């Protein structure tokens, strides 16, 4: 049964996931073609200098991509469930209601984590051609909150979509917007290092919160 549920979830999000993967690959190709071009034409030492001492990053194009992907996957996965309250059908299956929602959500989260890890892995591999760890590590620290923000967006948008009462959807959206903004605070390269453990912890905790509106949805809260 869970295999079929996962298959159902995959059908809902596969198009979005493939488009996201395609866009991410295009972004990465763009990044490294640009780096290669600039190193050839501007001179490598100069290029390193602008990263080290002028704070210019070569990967800024990736900033809002995880946010967009998290948003799109959450919408693709949960909007169909709220149309005509279809998720209620799922909840009538002879399995625990929470259990089924947890598995749906875990599958979506796992797909996102995999996608993000692939993108960060390819980014690291590509960067290693041109830069030493002294440039790659701060770059990864700089972009980690962006990807965490993508995960948080997915978790919070799922929460908002499953909430049955419109006014509360609005209130959740206020909190979600305020929280996701934190991940995209502009800062110099590597400045997020001290706050990363706390952000990771909160993001992991937020993976549970869909249960809250799922519960309200089930109980037909109005």
């Amino acid at each position, binding site marked *: 049964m869970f295999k079929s549920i996962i298959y159902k979830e995959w059908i809902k999000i596969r198009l979005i996931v493939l488009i996201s993967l395609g866009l991410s690959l295009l972004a990465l190709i763009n990044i490294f073609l640009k780096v290669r071009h600039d190193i050839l034409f501007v001179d490598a030492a100069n290029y390193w200098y602008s990263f080290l001492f002028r704070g210019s990053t070569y990967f800024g194009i990736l900033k809002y991509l995880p946010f967009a992907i998290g948003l799109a996957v959450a919408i693709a996965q949960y909007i169909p469930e709220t149309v005509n309250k279809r998720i209620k059908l799922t909840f009538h299956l002879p399995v625990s209601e929470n259990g089924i929602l947890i598995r749906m959500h875990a599958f979506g989260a796992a797909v996102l984590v995999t996608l993000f890890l692939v993108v960060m892995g390819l980014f690291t591999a590509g960067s290693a051609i041109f830069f030493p760890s002294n440039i790659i590590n701060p770059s990864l620290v700089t972009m980690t909150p962006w990807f965490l923000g993508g995960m948080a967006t997915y978790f919070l948008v799922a929460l908002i979509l499953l909430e049955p009462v419109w006014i509360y959807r609005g209130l959740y959206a206020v909190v979600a917007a305020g*929280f996701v903004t934190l991940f995209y605070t502009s800062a110099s390269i590597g400045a997020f290092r001290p706050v990363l453990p706390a952000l990771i912890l909160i993001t992991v905790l937020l993976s549970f919160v869909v249960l809250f509106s799922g519960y309200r949805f089930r109980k037909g809260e109005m």
Partner: protein
Amino acid sequence: MIKISRYILVLTAVLVASIALPAFYWTVFEKVPRSPQIYYSCVTGDFIIADGNKRTDPSGKEFTLDEYERALPLLYFRQLMADGEMPDSIHGIKLEAPSISRASSFYRYTPRKLKTPVPTLYPMLESQSGKVNLAMPDDYFRIEKRMEFIVAKTNRINEEKSALFTDALIEEGFVFPAKIIAGIPTTRKSVDEGYFVTDSGGSLFHVKMIKGEPYVVRIETEEKLDIVYIEAVDLRSREFYCYVFTKNQGIFVVMDEVYDLQRLPVDGFNPEIHTFRINADLFNKCITVLGENWYQAIAVDDMYKVVGTHYEEWSGLYERAEGKAFASIFPFEIRMKDDNSAFIRFFFRPSPGYRWIIVNLVALIIAFIMIRRRGWAIGANIADLLIVGITGIYGLAATQFFPNKFTVNKQPNNK
């Protein structure tokens, strides 16, 4: 699990509220903090405080702009020369434009410089190339397990050069890795003096490259210094190489060529929270240490002997109306960014005093009434009330945003 998920949401909302609401409050109500500039006049032999458009001496006597410029002839010599009012000599020393500008320098340290992400790669310029212009090298060095030069174009380590410099450092007793690397990594300076580096034992070294060869000097200090920040400067007077800030042993300058550490006459300087300024001219150096709502100005002569001090204090943020109101409404605030740090963190700032307890109590009463009106059991809402009691209006908003409806055990009584 569902209940826990609600508390995760409530606490997230408290976090967001305690960042967003105070930020909004300060945007609307905060006033520009005072940041006076303090100079030492070689004419009056006293301090001059320039604060906005007001220029006074320590006794409060105001200066017009012309009087002010005449009192600081070394700072405004171009203006005074244009007006034909520049004195020929002061204290028996003939004043000439080149010597005035050579002796003039300004430097400022802020706690933000201490708490900022720093690069771990630096360019080692050739300091005696024989050319008039300095040139950027095509490699960058790092000092980790050894000193390594990485060629930017190939992203590969230059083994030969790395071994040369590593050996030179070891010979001087350097313990890898480096803690602080401070230099001026640009060609826009008058000469190259390389880098001032502390090793993992905290000892201070001077490292530069002369005709492709390493030049390493271990700088001896009388006592072990707990160095937290170094900033190299490019003084035209060539008086000293760099400023050295210690955790609580004061501020030093490393004298040019002789590597003597000269302690600046500043006591109680805390690099974590205090700002340091120095205005140097032909006769004096005027040092200012600034706290949040006070400054201490110290003037020294060219032998670093103190010739005058001045202290002033004004009301702090939480003593002013907007700060008092803030501390009454909000029990605390969380900031992602802090004026004293370039890092992103959750900076927790409790409000001083206890006036916020009143607002917290009011919030608690409102929460209590709302729970009663909805006919919810108080017992099941203890955690909510606790959150409101501690976090005040943040908690009140957060608990209302995410309704606690697991506990309906009697019908709402429509009063």
